[in-house]
């Protein structure tokens, strides 16, 4: 276990997501792959902000808190935006999946072959 371990695990999570997108035939599993990869991205954003022993970025009137002892607050704001975007994408993909199921009666992507050439 060293300090790089969280980053490596995060990248493995991202790879799992990308693998699911590329290799799976079921639409729902592809969507899950997108979600997993998205969460790996969000996790990475938080990891970038992390500082060992850092505290939240709030100043206090009663004690002296140096800015250097805080974790970086900006990625926390960014990750919220990123999560909301992920939510919108996922909702849209699932809505599409429902409509696709209604048209084809299957979730198998290899049986949807209207577009060729």
């Amino acid at each position, binding site marked *: 276990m060293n300090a790089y371990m969280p980053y490596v695990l995060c990248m493995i999570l*991202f790879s799992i997501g*990308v693998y699911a*997108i590329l290799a799976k035939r079921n*639409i729902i599993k*592809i969507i899950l792959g*997108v979600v997993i*990869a*998205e969460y790996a*991205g969000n996790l*990475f*954003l938080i990891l*970038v902000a992390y500082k060992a022993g850092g505290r939240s970025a709030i100043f206090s009137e009663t004690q002296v808190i140096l800015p250097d002892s805080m974790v970086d607050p*900006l*990625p926390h704001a*960014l990750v919220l*935006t*990123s999560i909301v*975007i992920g939510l*919108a*994408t996922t909702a*849209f*993909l699932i809505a*599409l*999946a429902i*409509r*696709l199921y209604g*048209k*084809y009666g299957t979730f198998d992507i290899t049986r*949807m072959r*209207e*577009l060729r*050439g």
Partner: protein
Amino acid sequence: MISESIVPLFVAIPLGGAFLIALLKRIKGIPDIFGVVASAGTFIISILFLLKMEITPRIIYNIGNWGGFNEVLGKIVGIQLVIDGLTIFMLLIINFVAFIVAVYSVNYMTRYTEKWQFFCLFLLMLAGMNGVLITGDLFNLFVFVEIASLASYALVAFGTEKRELEASFKYAVMGSVASLLILMGVIFLYSYTGTLNMADMTGILAGSEQPALMYLVFGLLLTGFGLKAAMVPFHAWLPDAHPSAPAPISAMLSGVLIKALGVYAIARVFFTVFGFPHQISIILLTLGAISMGVGALVALRQWDMKRLLAYSSISQVGYIMVGLGIGTPLGILGALFHLFNHSMFKSLLFLDSGAVEYAAGTRDMKEMGGLSRKLPVTSGSTLVGAMSLAGIPPFAGFWSKLIIIIALVEASHMKLAAWAVLMSIVTIAYILKVTRFAFLGALRDRFANIKEVPLLMRISLILLALVCIFGGLLLIPEVRDTFLEPAVRVLISGMRGGV
């Protein structure tokens, strides 16, 4: 009157328009009026900014007035909106095409139900694209890319038939992966530089020796934006997605979306932030040359009119990429001028294909023939767009291709220049197929009773055709100095020449 405080209107007008359309959808005519007025409004504002450009070449607006922290902390905290020569160039193109497309859609979209949803999504997409252009903050750029992309996924699926849904799913999954890669690249850059502001980032990256990590960032951002720009080998979604959308949206997607989200973002990030390293030049030249060839050769064997045009877009974006990749002032001028021309003639051709579909009810060129007698305006404007695309001399497309090829020769890329000439001959071949099979020849009996398209559609076709004919006038020195040169200067001044 034109001060920096109205910069946010580029995003606020379409966003507010989309909101009001969704709110007032029950009142007849509201979606049409708001759609046209909002896109006309942003176009007028971009003209006003163009006129102001000569006095102040770089306008900066701090959102929420957070700019004051610059003096205290020594770095920019809030989001900045920046308008410079390149931004204003792209804003004019995009808002002009959007305005034309909105006018065209008023008649065209009566074929579909729920017109308000169309205009709502259309304005959201416009807001996203304008946002991508004016933002000076890298994470903000990602957010606007996502707004425009999500609206375009939904618009591709607008017909909700088998084809549309399948194309939209493919596009949405690939688009999401692209966005993730862009986000990863942005995070890596943030963790290295400690800022998201592009101007700050440029300063930090220029002042230090860059680590090997930068190559990873190049790869992530180039793949992400390359997917949005549909460069080969990231093009698989485009020939499905662009033909499946309603014709006005095909015109928006092929005409401006791939340029705002792809080409502009690549130019902005790699030229002004990274200073155009040598490796990127090689990658852009290679991928551009491959896109040029693959797009043109595959387009030759298409029979669906819109699918042929979609492959042609891949090929033409290849020309733009090659022009940018040369990295000389002439090459960049050619690339930006070709970007302008491609927006105009490809929107025109897609709108024409929609007009044919509106009148004759088919997109398959094998079933058409002799339509020029029944559809004089449509066939005339298609001919103008086709000539511009093929690069026949007086038309605008000829000049931009000529400039790119001259720039290639000057930079002694002889093989690439020969390749570009060869591919422009293939371009003539596939675009003549459209005019030959769709509009010339004998008229079929089943088309004996078709009528020319409604007035508003004709007006928008004629306007775009006029731009295609007279676009070459942009090269007159006085016009070039106000419109093209400032954009070229922005990219040239960003170049530092490498890692």
